[in-house]
């Protein structure tokens, strides 16, 4: 185990460092003529905007995501069946399309929802020329960023909540706390590390998020860091030095956040899956149930149903328009998309790549995290345990650091540097799916690692200890005890990575060609031509297909547990 984990860590580090080094050497020696990075004072407002958008959005997502997770996992107040899938659904709309769904609804002049509201208002005598909701605003950006991040939080938190011993909630209620107070005082704090982890992941995701700020922010004249970095890279001549400096700065911020998180939420004090059987009772909410149902339904309507309806409408139009020209609606966009062999090929390649990448990433991240979990084994933690001492947390810290490395590197930079690094001998990977695979793996590693880390932290030590006592090697313990227990969390990570890769456009546009086509490129191409209807049609097709994948995955991972507790 030791060597394997060391090798994996070195490989991951190399996957980041080597291409970056090539880029730095290659690009700069060619173009650098002065020390001027082109970073000026306007950066301050960009940083401030980023702080507001990402901070606000991630907090919004934390609140919504955690609430949804709580309702679905701990209470009888959600919807059975699709309940655990619905909150994830909006994330399945690839990249720019998701935002477009919102623009279609909430464009201040022609947004369908706005038009509807205006019509309604006009009945009561209020006439508005535009609005009332302007999505092209700071509020809109925060809200949409938040909505975009909800699934991330939801996936992580719900996986952690799934295994929580209901007894601690029951004890709270016996002692006079109602369901809400119990949730706030007991349930959520008991998974505080997962909450912190999810939040951090939300922040990482939010910082890297490009489609929302580029579409909404341009019009709102609010520039954020990801857009600025993108500009540094895509303006010709590009300014990769500035981009790299900013990316490195963000990495520092994220590592700092990680450290703060560890300090504020020592992982010893969370609820873990313990050795006493956990009864699978859900909190009965009684009259609150109606309220939570409404909440969930409201979220699903807002985050999934409405935008998808909006997009569906666009996808049957010849071009996006406020005026619905009923006579012109047709499925021709779908025909075009599905009738194109190149598109179909890219769809297949993308699905395959996403599945393989997600699996590999989760295997690697899961292994590393479980390994770290094992390593803290003899450190004197018990049933929740005390704080780890330095020597053990060393492993975890190294793993955290290495897997965080790619977190903030802009995808376009990853794309460029991978061309530089892996085209020539001895790799010769250019134009193959492997270069995409490597690039995806690299950029998804932080997400995979965060998800896996959160998942493993909920497994109580004694379960692994018991396995070791009964003669099982570390490997067997991981395979038979830890892995099944962290499976829901790993599945959550899998879904995240899968979705990210399916929707990835930036690096894809650089690395994918006719020999290794992926849907990200096709989408970007359609976007570039302004062919929104076809892009939407393709996005909806992708949405349906990936929904099936994700649904299957979530089902599969939950079933084992349902059996043990139901």
């Amino acid at each position: 185990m030791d060597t394997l984990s060391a090798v994996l860590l070195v490989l991951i580090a190399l996957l980041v460092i080597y291409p970056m080094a090539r880029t730095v050497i290659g690009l700069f020696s060619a173009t650098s003529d002065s020390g001027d990075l082109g970073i000026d004072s306007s950066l301050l407002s960009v940083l401030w905007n980023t702080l507001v958008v990402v901070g606000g959005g991630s907090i919004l997502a934390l609140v919504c995501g955690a609430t949804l997770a709580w309702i679905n996992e701990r209470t009888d107040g959600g919807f059975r069946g699709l309940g655990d899938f619905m909150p994830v659904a909006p994330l399945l709309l690839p990249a720019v399309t998701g935002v477009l769904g919102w623009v279609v609804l909430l464009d201040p002049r022609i947004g369908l929802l706005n038009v509807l509201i205006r019509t309604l208002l006009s009945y009561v005598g209020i006439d508005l020329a535009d609005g009332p909701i302007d999505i092209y605003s700071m509020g809109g950006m925060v809200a949409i960023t938040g909505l975009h991040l909800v699934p991330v939080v939801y996936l992580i938190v719900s996986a952690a909540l799934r295994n929580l011993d209901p007894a601690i909630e029951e004890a709270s209620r016996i002692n006079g706390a109602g369901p809400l107070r119990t949730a706030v005082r007991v349930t959520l704090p008991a998974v505080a590390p997962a909450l912190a982890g999810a939040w951090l992941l939300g922040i990482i995701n939010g910082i890297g998020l490009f489609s929302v700020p580029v579409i909404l922010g341009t019009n709102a004249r609010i520039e954020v860091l990801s857009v600025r970095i993108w500009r540094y890279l895509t303006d010709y001549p590009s300014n990769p030095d500035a981009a790299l400096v900013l990316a490195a700065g963000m990495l520092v911020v994220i590592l700092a956040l990680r450290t703060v998180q560890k300090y504020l939420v020592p992982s010893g004090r969370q609820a873990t899956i313990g050795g006493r059987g956990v009864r699978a009772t859900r909190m009965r909410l009684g009259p609150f149930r109606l309220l939570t149902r409404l909440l969930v339904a409201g979220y699903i309507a807002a985050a999934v149903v409405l935008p998808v309806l909006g997009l569906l409408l666009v996808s049957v139009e010849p071009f996006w328009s406020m005026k619905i020209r009923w006579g012109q609606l047709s499925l021709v966009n779908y025909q075009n998309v599905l009738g194109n062999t190149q598109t179909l090929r890219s769809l297949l390649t993308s699905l395959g790549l996403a599945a393989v990448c997600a699996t590999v990433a989760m295997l690697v991240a899961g292994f590393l995290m479980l390994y770290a979990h094992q390593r803290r084994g003899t450190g004197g933690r018990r049933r929740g345990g005390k704080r780890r001492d330095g020597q053990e947390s060393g492993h975890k810290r190294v793993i955290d650091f290495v897997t965080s490395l790619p977190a903030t590197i802009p995808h376009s930079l990853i794309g460029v540097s991978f061309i530089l690094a892996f085209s020539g001998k001895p790799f010769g990977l250019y134009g193959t799916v492997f270069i995409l695979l490597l690039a995806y793996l690299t950029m998804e590693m932080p997400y995979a690692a965060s998800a896996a880390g959160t998942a493993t932290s909920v497994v109580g030590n004694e379960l692994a200890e018991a396995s070791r006592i009964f003669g099982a090697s570390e490997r067997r313990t991981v395979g038979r005890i830890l892995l099944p227990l962290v499976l829901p969390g790993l599945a959550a990570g899998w879904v995240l990575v899968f979705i990210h890769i399916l929707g990835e456009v930036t690096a894809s546009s650089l690395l994918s060609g006719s020999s290794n086509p992926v849907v990200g490129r096709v989408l970007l191409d359609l976007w570039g031509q302004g062919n929104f209807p076809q892009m939407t049609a393709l996005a909806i097709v992708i949405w349906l297909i990936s929904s099936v994948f994700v649904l299957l995955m979530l089902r599969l991972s939950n079933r084992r547990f349902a059996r043990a507790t139901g």
Partner: protein
Amino acid sequence: MVTQAREVSDPEQSGTASAPARSRISVRNLTKTYRTRRGDVTALRNVSMDVDEGEIMVLLGPSGCGKTTLLRCVAGLEHPDAGEITVNGRTVYSSERGISLPPERRNLSMVFQSYALWPHMSVFDNVAYPLRTAKTSADEVRRRVGEVLDTVGLEKYGSSYPGQLSGGQQQRVSLARALVANQGVILFDEPLSNLDAKVRDRLREELLTLQRKIGFTALYVTHDQTEATGLGDRIAVMEVGTVAQLGSPTDIYYTPASRYVADFVGSANELTGSVAEAVGDRVRVDTSVGPLLGTPTAGMAKGEPVRVLFRPEHCLIAPDGAAAEGNRFSCTVERSTFLGSHVEYNLSASGQRLVLKTMDGNLLASGAKVAVSLDPTLARVFPAD
């Protein structure tokens, strides 16, 4: 005489509550079935009981008989299939009337069998929780938590986290949390099982003192006979989902209603035989060790096959030689086991194996012949099935 003993014994300790006390917990025809893949498990079947104000009702029964389930139903943590539960005069559950109050509105405390401590809160915060939900002032919280931590002997551990405590310490935190709120009704699920005898004795005493001071009503699950008899005003002996007998400790101990109870509470020697004749309110039974006088538990016809049950500690050893007169029979010592405060003898009498317990320090060697005498009041005769 023992029958007399019950009369002089402290009423606080053993009496069936004589005052017409208001019932604080009342359970009527409670039924609860768990549906599992290996079929339905009926954990409670038509259970009824009343716990009076200020009374401690002990639930005694083998592992898996439904004690925890009963407590959880009363607490509102489990949803029964049928029946009615009243707590503090308020119907908190009724399948007929469709009432089911959530736990937080039932006004009771509980010690969980699995402790159910909150891992993210310090010991102090864990214990303070019920007070804080009741909006007690910070000073008051500090004072009362300090007091109760003192009581359970954890005054130094306020700032520790549950994960840093030993098993017994965790259990005591759980106990402290239930006691701190001064609720009128407290449910205890094996609250002292992981504690050593000393601490347990002390806490038992403390519980009694507190009970006298606050006057709480309790349903108390334990598997410790000493705890059951020492704490319980009444004991309910449970048998797979039903109440086998409910009565004062002495009732249960001296006049068990069934073989099951006789055997479960304490232990019992059993001799089979048949009724020879009635002697006043006694019967003479012919057994393999000779005729024995005993107290019948039901109407019995002559010749009816019966079992005579008596407790190991109710046999007296008399030097051998005295004939089998006055409910005596002779035995051989097979093995003697020293068990701290008492000695246990495995005896054989005409092929029957019996157990005898005595506090007499005079240890008999294996093979010794002894006569065992039996008080007819304490030899209970049950119909053979």
